């Protein structure tokens, strides 16, 4: 089977100054039980050097979106929409054409560093090979550069460490090696998918620092995928909130963290315990659970969990509307109602099991 790709009549190249433009990206997986609508019309633009975070619950489509951009999805995936790198369409390229972009122009970092490292070669050699794959330099020069890169990502004694095999390193060091490989060819875009999720916090801080060093050295733009809102707050300029295969809120980190305009975002923020707040204020869980991506009903997929839901929400899925700031978008029919509203005002600080219930059930119980 071949990937079914239906390229939208794209706009002309070089639109603005974006390095990466994703437009109406849609990914479906036909399975025995039905079609999984993993990504449902995702659009974003990434300016050179900017850092954009994507956050969302497990299964919301964050990884599939990135894999589609990188041309790494299985052939069974049905992909449509458009992905342009510096104005050039990537979707529909052959594997060979993709290989010229991958690793050179766009680099990807995965959660588990072992998936990107070869256990039988030293890490120095692996970085050097990434350099040799796209550059006409001597082996010696590539190896010297590898050691330099290891130093940039904060690995102590890089000359010695270059001779280590992946299994001789800790998880945090391996992830820094992967970052060194990602920056080896001076990419324009780095996509990092949960790069620190499996790591301890002090190690996470080291890896995030390595990522910042890589950006500073290459000037690359960053797409940072994570479920940790704290990581995004500290390392992204803009944020996209993803829910059930869609981006449901977009804006600068300040807009979205301080003035969320989509009830789901507000709910996420309200359910977080805070290191910087002492009190034992009640947390406000979001009731219910995310929908199945098979046979999604019409309307807004957050409706069954939403305290603001009205009949129109079940009928019509909202577009991304501009809110009070033009670049701050929200996919909620009632985003104006969130102005000045706190999570505690909208969501209830309940302690009962809420996964099978709706906000209305809770009202009845109280």
């Amino acid at each position, binding site marked *: 089977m071949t990937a079914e790709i239906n390229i939208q009549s794209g706009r002309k190249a070089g639109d603005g100054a974006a390095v990466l433009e994703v437009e109406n990206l849609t990914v479906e997986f036909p399975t025995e039980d039905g079609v999984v609508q993993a990504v449902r019309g995702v659009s974003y633009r990434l300016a050179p050097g900017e850092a954009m975070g994507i956050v969302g*619950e*497990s299964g919301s489509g964050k990884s599939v979106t990135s894999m589609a951009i990188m041309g790494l999805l299985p052939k069974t995936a049905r992909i449509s929409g458009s992905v342009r790198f510096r104005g050039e369409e990537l979707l529909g390229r052959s594997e060979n054409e993709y290989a010229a972009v991958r690793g050179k122009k766009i680099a990807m970092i995965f959660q588990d560093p072992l998936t990107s490292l070869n256990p039988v070669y030293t890490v120095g050699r692996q970085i050097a090979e990434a350099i040799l794959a796209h550059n006409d330099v001597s082996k010696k020069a590539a190896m010297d550069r590898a050691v330099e890169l290891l130093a940039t990502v*904060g690995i*102590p004694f890089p000359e010695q460490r270059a001779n280590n095999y992946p299994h001789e390193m*800790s998880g*945090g*060091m391996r992830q820094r090696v992967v970052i060194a490989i990602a920056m080896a060819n001076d990419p324009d875009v780095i996509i990092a998918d949960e790069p620190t999720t499996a790591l*301890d*916090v*002090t*190690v*996470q*801080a*080291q890896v995030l*620092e390595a990522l910042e060093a890589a950006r500073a050295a290459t000037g690359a733009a960053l797409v940072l995928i994570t*479920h*940790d*809102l*704290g*990581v995004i*707050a*500290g390392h992204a300029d803009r944020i996209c909130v993803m829910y059930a295969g869609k981006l449901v809120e977009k804006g600068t*980190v*300040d807009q979205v*963290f*301080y003035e969320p305009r989509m009830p789901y975002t507000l*709910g*996420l*923020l*309200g*359910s*977080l*315990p*805070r*290191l*910087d*707040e*002492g009190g*034992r204020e*009640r*947390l*406000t*869980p*979001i009731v219910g*659970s995310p929908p199945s991506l098979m046979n999604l009903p019409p309307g807004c997929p957050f409706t069954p969990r939403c305290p603001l839901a009205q009949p129109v929400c079940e009928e019509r899925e909202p577009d991304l509307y501009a809110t009070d700031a033009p670049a701050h978008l929200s996919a909620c029919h009632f985003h104006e109602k969130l102005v000045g509203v706190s999570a505690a005002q909208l969501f209830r*600080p*309940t*302690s*009962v*099991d*809420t*996964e*099978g219930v709706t906000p209305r059930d809770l009202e009845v119980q109280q």
Partner: protein
Amino acid sequence: MTAANVAEPAVSAGREPVLAVRDLVKHFPVRSRGLIRRRVGDVHAVCGVSFDLFGNETLGLVGESGCGKTTTGRLLLNLIKATSGEVRYDGRNLVDLSPSQMRPLRRDLQIVFQDPFASLDPRMTINEIVAEPLQIHGLYGSRTQGRDKVRELLRMVGLNPEHGNRYAHEFSGGQRQRIGIARALALRPKALVLDEPVSALDVSIQAGVINLLEDLQDELGLSYLFISHDLSVVRHIADRVAVMYLGRIVEIAEKEQLFTKAAHPYTQALISAIPLPDPRKERSRQRITLTGDVPSPVDPPSGCRFRSRCPKFANELTDAERQKCVDEVPALIDRGQGHASACHYAEALKLV
């Protein structure tokens, strides 16, 4: 060897602790590969840990992977044999008790495990899972009495008692964690060890379970040892916090003290490494980044175990000062108000 660490933890104003832990040690043997599997060393998992757990309080136990949190929790309930040390409960040292001597005490001391998927038998219904401890301890009573008790327990943890006939695999992670809590509560315990009870859950589900644990504590007057690597959760739920590094408690204090006046360089690094979901604060924060990796617990550094990664040791101390870190295990010394830290050069810092 660990004499320096035995210092009595500061007792909060004459209260009697429910559990008193003194100089607890656990070594796991490391054996060679191959047929003969000689003992070639020890994992120093827990090394001279002392603390008190008071009635109706939550003591948070935090630290990074492998520092000995789970081992400490299990030692507390005598689920694994301590190498040495004491766990005092109700006038007895649990460490010396046999399994049959422990059984009656199990009613009072219960544990909830991290992984709600692994800790429940998939072939049992929820009713059976929750009823089992009651039956083992002869508290189930008649069938109607027993059924009512189970229904009440399910209601208590926020589950619908109508779902009692379903199997564990039909429930989500958050729901399974509630089932685990219902089971632990069945015998009306006094103290619960909660080992990473919300770590596997998405934040929106985690919030409900945290609320539940708070409600239950208020209603039932429970004491919690709340084990977690997530300091944000611990700041929310705990009254006091103990920080572990490589088998030792390096700092213990009332929660506000610990988070606003952390005195041990490791606690400081840990707090400053936690990302805050607040962009303005993130932009202006002071970060203390550690270098190097956690040393092997088979061969921990002499003196202060944190010195190989300590920014203070590396950047601020003179050679003479450093020598003390190499030679002497820093004692866990109370520096006032029950705030104890184990650093020769402790100095309070406000980081959040």
